[in-house]
């Protein structure tokens, strides 16, 4: 990444060249891929989007599209359309590509965590400057970091984290820096570039812009090509394979990998150019675990309204309100071991585990040559259907890695026990009836403690089966302590707490929030069975 700015012009040029070449060859072989058709689709979408130009879009964007539209309108031939296509593709590629600033990286990686900690935990001032770096104290980073450092030096890392919150991007950046792993490029929604503070750092830390409003094929081709070219040049990358934040709060199970799939294409391209010693790609699953989620209320409401797909870009959630972010961060920073970042074992693009020196091993531990998976008639070759299937299979394995690497906090266990209690109190009711039933629901704290301990034990036993691990801060707590921890976490951040103590009972005060936190154990059959 430190050389990204030097590579940038060449990357933009190469992306433009590839996409234009791809369009040319497609137009030559398939009638439905004719240039005029493809550009008409683009003009239709872009005209609609640019009817009212507002930042980050520009008048220049509109003029370019209008010129393209006029050329199509007068029935221009490919000779005239091709330069216009090239100009449009270059514009998209240039917009997507970010920059990298060493000074901004130093600020972000060294100063920012301390400043954040200082700002958010003023009570630590009384203890002197020793506590400036308290963010480090709150975040546990686990995994074979030595191996990952070796792999980063030897090949290209493709880091694939879970995704619950917009805070995941700064968190993974912080964790990579703490793990002494190199800075990486990553895709971020263009909407995140509208805030001056986030935009300042994101523009300079290798983030590339993904404009989710542009849903037509050509833009997706540019984006994919950009990702592939970047990976071919050995730039480490971060992709959130769930595509968007988990709306339900459950661990992501259906991963599309999307752009991450370009790592395989990049690997094959490198094999074709450099032979068997080509630089390899290593997928690194990472789970980001917290007892609370900043945007939980909005996300679960969105999930329940089943409009998650329509509201792919939520711009009015808690992340957009600085006060809520500050309260949230402060809440987390006052909790020991509040955040767990777990790096899983690296895999090659075919799902094989990778050893410290980058060698691939199948499930029995036997060494395998990854190049053999992409040979056709003895030479490495692209094959769309095959490569898509390899990527789909890899997604299944990474989804399993996500489960195994998930931390279960007191908030999840208590929410699970409370929602199971609600289910028993309202037999036969569906989830919406349970959530909206007018009768107040509560449970005696001793009864709840007993249930919580059963769930905790099931979680501990399930760790060996890859169902997730009990969070460190929960590992020494009994039922009462887990309840106290969960209720303290719930209190004071969300609009109203998910549950609260009243005398000897615990009252379910926000069932939607409880459902959200309970869903972290949705995959965990033993945790369900111990209470059924």
């Amino acid at each position: 990444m430190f050389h990204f700015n030097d590579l940038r012009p060449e990357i933009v040029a190469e992306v433009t060249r590839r996409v234009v070449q791809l369009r040319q060859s497609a137009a030559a072989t398939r009638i439905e891929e004719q240039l005029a058709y493809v550009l008409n689709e683009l003009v239709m979408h872009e005209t609609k989007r640019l009817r009212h130009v507002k930042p980050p879009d520009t008048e220049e964007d509109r003029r370019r599209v209008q010129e393209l539209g006029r050329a199509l309108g007068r029935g221009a031939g490919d000779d005239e359309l091709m330069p216009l296509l090239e100009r449009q593709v270059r514009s998209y590629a240039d917009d997507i590509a970010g920059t990298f600033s060493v000074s901004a990286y130093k600020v972000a990686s060294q100063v920012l965590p301390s400043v954040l900690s200082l700002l958010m935990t003023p009570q630590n001032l009384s203890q002197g400057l020793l506590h400036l770096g308290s963010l480090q104290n709150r975040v546990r980073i686990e995994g074979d970091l030595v191996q990952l450092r070796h792999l980063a030096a030897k090949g290209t890392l493709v880091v694939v984290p879970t995704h619950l919150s917009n805070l995941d991007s700064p968190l993974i950046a912080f964790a990579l820096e703490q793990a002494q792993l190199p800075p990486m490029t990553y895709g971020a929604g263009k909407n995140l570039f509208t805030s001056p503070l986030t935009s300042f750092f994101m523009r300079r830390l290798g983030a590339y812009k993904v404009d989710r409003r542009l849903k037509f094929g050509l833009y997706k081709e540019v984006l994919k090509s950009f990702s592939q070219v970047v990976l071919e040049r050995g730039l480490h990358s971060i992709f959130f394979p769930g595509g968007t934040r988990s709306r339900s709060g459950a661990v992501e199970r259906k991963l599309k990998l999307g752009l991450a799939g370009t790592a395989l294409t990049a690997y094959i391209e490198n094999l074709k150019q450099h032979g068997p010693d080509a630089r390899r790609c290593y997928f690194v699953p990472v789970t980001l675990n917290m007892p609370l989620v900043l945007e939980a209320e909005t996300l679960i409401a969105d999930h329940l309204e089943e409009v998650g797909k329509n509201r792919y870009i939520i711009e009015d959630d808690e992340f957009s309100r600085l006060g809520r972010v500050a309260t949230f961060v402060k809440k987390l920073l006052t909790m020991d071991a509040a955040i767990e970042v777990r790096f899983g074992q690296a895999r090659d693009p075919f799902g094989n585990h990778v050893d410290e020196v980058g060698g691939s091993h199948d499930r029995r531990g036997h060494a395998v040559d990854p190049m053999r998976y992409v040979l056709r008639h003895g030479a490495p070759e692209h094959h769309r259907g095959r490569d898509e299937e390899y990527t789909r299979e890899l997604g299944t394995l990474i989804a399993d890695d996500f489960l195994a690497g998930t931390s279960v906090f007191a908030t999840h266990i208590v929410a699970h026990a409370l929602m199971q209690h609600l289910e028993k109190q309202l037999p036969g009711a569906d989830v919406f009836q349970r959530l909206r039933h007018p009768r107040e629901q509560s449970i005696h704290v001793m009864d709840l403690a007993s249930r919580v301990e059963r769930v905790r034990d099931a979680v501990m036993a399930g760790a060996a089966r890859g169902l997730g691990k009990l969070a460190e801060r929960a590992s020494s707590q009994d039922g009462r302590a887990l309840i106290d921890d969960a209720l303290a976490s719930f209190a004071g951040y969300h609009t109203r707490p998910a549950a609260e103590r009243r005398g000897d009972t615990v009252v379910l005060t926000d069932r939607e929030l409880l459902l959200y936190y309970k869903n972290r154990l949705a995959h965990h059959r033993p945790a369900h069975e111990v209470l059924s």
Partner: protein
Amino acid sequence: VSANPSAQPAAATRSPHSPQAAPARPLGIITGTPLGLALVARLTADDRPVQACPATAGAAELEGLARACELLVIDAEPGQLPPLARALGEVTDGNHRLAHTVRGVTADGLTAIELLRQETPVRRLGVIAGPLGAADLLAARPTAAVVASRHPEVVDELAAALSTPRLRIYRGRDPLGVELSQGLVELVTFACGVIAGLGFGEATRALLIVRAVRELGRIVVAAGGEPQTASGLAGLGALLVRAHDSGGAAYRLGQAASHGQANDDETGRAQTEALLRTARALRELSRQKKVTAHVVDGVADLLGGTKTPADLLAGLMAIPVLDD
């Protein structure tokens, strides 16, 4: 259109049995049942390049086959598969493409593809199933099968390698559905043997087959497969043949069970155990997925000794009647 200019299309359109489509290297077939032997004989007679070795072959012979052939077919009984898969794991690599004809689940309750994925480095895996049987292949009577894989190369290459003027190969993208179909067909074939042994007629058999296909469809869909697989060659197609095949092992075991006869010989015991494993695995799957599976439950109870053939029949006839 792929982001890469040199990417290949997902699936090429090919004529059913054009010589140009067949791979230059021979198709390797590991033979563990009469079906595999008949397949080798049929393809050889039709001038298709084939190299065969028995499922009981030693490491050197398997290695020779794997070196000569990138495309392999494993024809084996479920019980033969675990050691064979382990041995193949030593001689195969990521460049191999592999499909199997194994009917039923292995001792660990895994489908053959799951086991092969565990024991070998091969990722491009598939399954061959359908009405094709040894007798039809040997007699050159027209027959058909489906090759199912998530990997298009496995489907395309095997369709090219196996298609002959007397063997029609259809392509499928639902290997899990096909493997589940293979297992359920075995159970229903067994039940058809029971029906025949009890002296019931074609109407009883038709009732069983139709309800079993519906049941299979529900299980396949719940497991993530495609609904049409149950009524395709691997499901209904295979059932229409095997339900009348009085020479088949599962059918004969069913006939014997209808008379309360136990299997004293080693082969019979192994076959009964394989059927019971399959029945239990399908029952567990249907329970996990909350799918009603009366036929699977009944056959599992019969094979497990908790029900007699008369109980089974009475139970199935007493199920509340639903819309057809």
